[in-house]
């Protein structure tokens, strides 16, 4: 049994804690953040409000819990969209290397890649209006070419291996080979990439919410908490520092997890260590 890298353990612990907090917020938060108590605004940290209250009298612990949930939910679905669409595209491109299909898929990817996710998000919200769904779509679309490239890049060398040739002579279609032989062999790559994209998704969601294109009130969102409290940074700094820290720690945790997973899952690194 090989020893797990410490980065993986720390990253996994942080991610797990956030995941648990997000899950708890589904059924319980200390206070209902949709029920504003304006007379209670800007309270200090206390036993009743552990991290105080914001400018509209909402409990900061509850706001952060729900904000973390929004970030994670948006990032998960967005990465899911990216994988669900990107991986089959990448596999198809690899399976038909050099064909017109390959060209079309990869140049299409380049096209999407050329647009930053923020521009895509502005485009989408200009058409359908700002909402969490549209933020998910924007981040998801941005993720498609990433996964398509990783899948294609990982799949190409596998297509040159002997057992693929054997499968082809046995009469398996390219689609079946991709699904049964190629995909399991690039799963490691995809998992590592997903973790990295997940942390980028968290950042993208925070960015979109910050400029008002993400989740709309009353849904709490870490990015919007930041933008709403920025003018109070001189008087009530915690209102901005807390959501900022929440984002930083979560992204750090995910990056450590991603690095650790790559070390743990990469067969070459594993062999070198073993």
């Amino acid at each position, binding site marked *: 049994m090989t020893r797990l890298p410490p980065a993986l353990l720390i990253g996994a612990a942080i991610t797990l804690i956030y995941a648990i907090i997000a899950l708890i917020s589904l059924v319980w938060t200390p206070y209902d953040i*949709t029920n504003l108590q*304006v007379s209670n605004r800007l309270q200090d940290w206390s036993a009743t409000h552990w991290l105080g209250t914001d400018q*509209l009298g909402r409990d900061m612990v509850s706001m952060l819990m729900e904000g973390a949930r929004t970030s994670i939910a948006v990032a998960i679905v967005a990465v899911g969209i990216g994988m669900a669409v990107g991986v089959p595209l990448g596999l198809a491109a690899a399976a038909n290397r050099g064909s017109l299909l390959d060209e079309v898929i990869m140049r299409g990817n380049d096209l999407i890649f050329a647009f930053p996710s923020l521009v895509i998000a502005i485009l989408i919200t200009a058409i359908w209006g700002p909402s969490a769904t549209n933020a998910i779509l924007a981040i998801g679309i941005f993720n498609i070419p990433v996964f398509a490239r990783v899948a294609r890049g990982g799949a190409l060398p596998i297509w040159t291996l002997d057992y693929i040739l054997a499968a082809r002579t046995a009469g398996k279609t390219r689609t079946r080979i991709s699904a049964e032989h190629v995909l399991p062999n690039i799963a490691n790559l995809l998992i590592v990439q997903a973790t990295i994209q997940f942390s980028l998704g968290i950042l993208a969601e925070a960015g979109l919410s910050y400029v008002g294109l993400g989740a709309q009130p009353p849904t709490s969102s870490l990015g919007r908490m930041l933008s709403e409290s920025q003018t109070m940074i001189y*008087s009530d700094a915690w209102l901005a520092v807390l959501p900022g820290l929440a984002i930083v720690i979560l992204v750090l945790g995910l990056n450590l997890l991603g690095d650790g997973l790559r070390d743990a899952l990469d067969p070459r690194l594993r062999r070198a260590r073993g």
Partner: protein
Amino acid sequence: MTKHLRLSAAVLALTAGAAFAQQSTITIGMQLEPPMLDPTGGAAAAIDEVVYANVFEGLTRFASDGSVVPGLAESWEISEDGTTYTFTLRDGVTFHDGEAMTAEDVVFSLDRARAEDTTNAQAALFANIVSVEAVDDTTVVVTLDGPDGAFLFDMAWGDAVIVDPASAEGNATNPIGTGPFRFVEWRQGDSIELARNDDYWGEPVALEGATFRFISDPNAAFAAMMAGDVDAFPVFPAPETLAQFEGNPQFNVLVGSTEGETILAMNHGSEALQDVRVREAISHAINRQDIIDGAMFGYGTPIGTHFAPHNPDYVDLTANSDFDPDRARELLAEAGVENLTLRLMLPPPSYARRGGEIIASQLRDVGIETEITNLEWAQWLEQVFRGYDFDLTIVSHTEPMDINIYARPEYYFQYDSAEFQSLMDQLNVETNPEQRGALLRQAQELISTDYVNAYLFQLAKTGVANANIEGLWENSPTQAIDLTGVSWTQ
């Protein structure tokens, strides 16, 4: 050529002034940049804020307390029947390009504003004028369709300033007026510079020049003010930071009233909101003090109708829509409304964004769900103001004496009441101040008991200025940053 020489002399004086005696110019911060600089051709408040009383003047003008005082007209006589106004103009007034301001210019300006193809944003101000005639160089006779008690008030608006036929077309980018400051330069996206007009007819102004800087981000505005890059920010965009200026002896916080009635506007084209009981329920569900505290950090005066509380004819009707969630629930039950979901569209100002979240919470408490959408101003104008595509929205109506918008069924909230329209028709022809007051009070009561909109609070004018500046307007009787009386104490 002389013009160029004079202009460069002014610029020289300005830069020299900045180098040797810093306190002779002023830098004013504004959140929004004007789209152009012709007050007779656009509705944007930022236009008037830069040019009203500074660059352009009208026959009459608003003083800082909202009263109407003589402007380019030195005096006037009103005929017995109230339909003929004879204005005597000041002698020796010139435009910044050296042209003399005469009665012909007044005829041109008013005729241009009331022409059929006018681009004036407040064409209604001139609708009552039948003819404008120049008797001699300094006498103008304006004949009205009927007596109009608000005529002198109307002529004080920024939209009614006097322009020169020779330069009128260029005023959008190179405004030429009669005011104490002349336009020097507009650096798009950054600032507008004015310099003192040394040929001014009136009392010379203390400042040698003024720069209007546009800073849209509230944080950047705060930093610019703290760093001294901006000397005064008459309409400061972040009320939450005022406490820090108040605690600092270097700054003065100016809290005054504005003409901004902040309302939760209801779309009378929406099915659910056509029922007065639903509108009344919404009005009772709202706790105004919470909104003033939470959204405006305590700055603002509760209102119960669409009228400015500092106006002598104001009636306090807040009791008609006091905070009473039980009454709201009863009314909703009476109206048979269940599971009502309304779309709440919020423009960018913090009174709308923060206020919207508070209202959403208060409405939820009585059983009305809201779907909040945050919009930029351009989207808001397109979708809400022109497109009628909304149920609820929060906006501050900053025009003075604008209760007559309730007589316009095509206005965005689409209130259509024959009773109110006839009240406004009577008001338009009434010149007796007492009778006018009575009509205005009646109008306020009607829209209050008809629960046309939910009336929230009168927007406070919260400004910040260097403590050594005096003479800035505390209140905002009109959209203006009047620099004529401003000076440095040291």
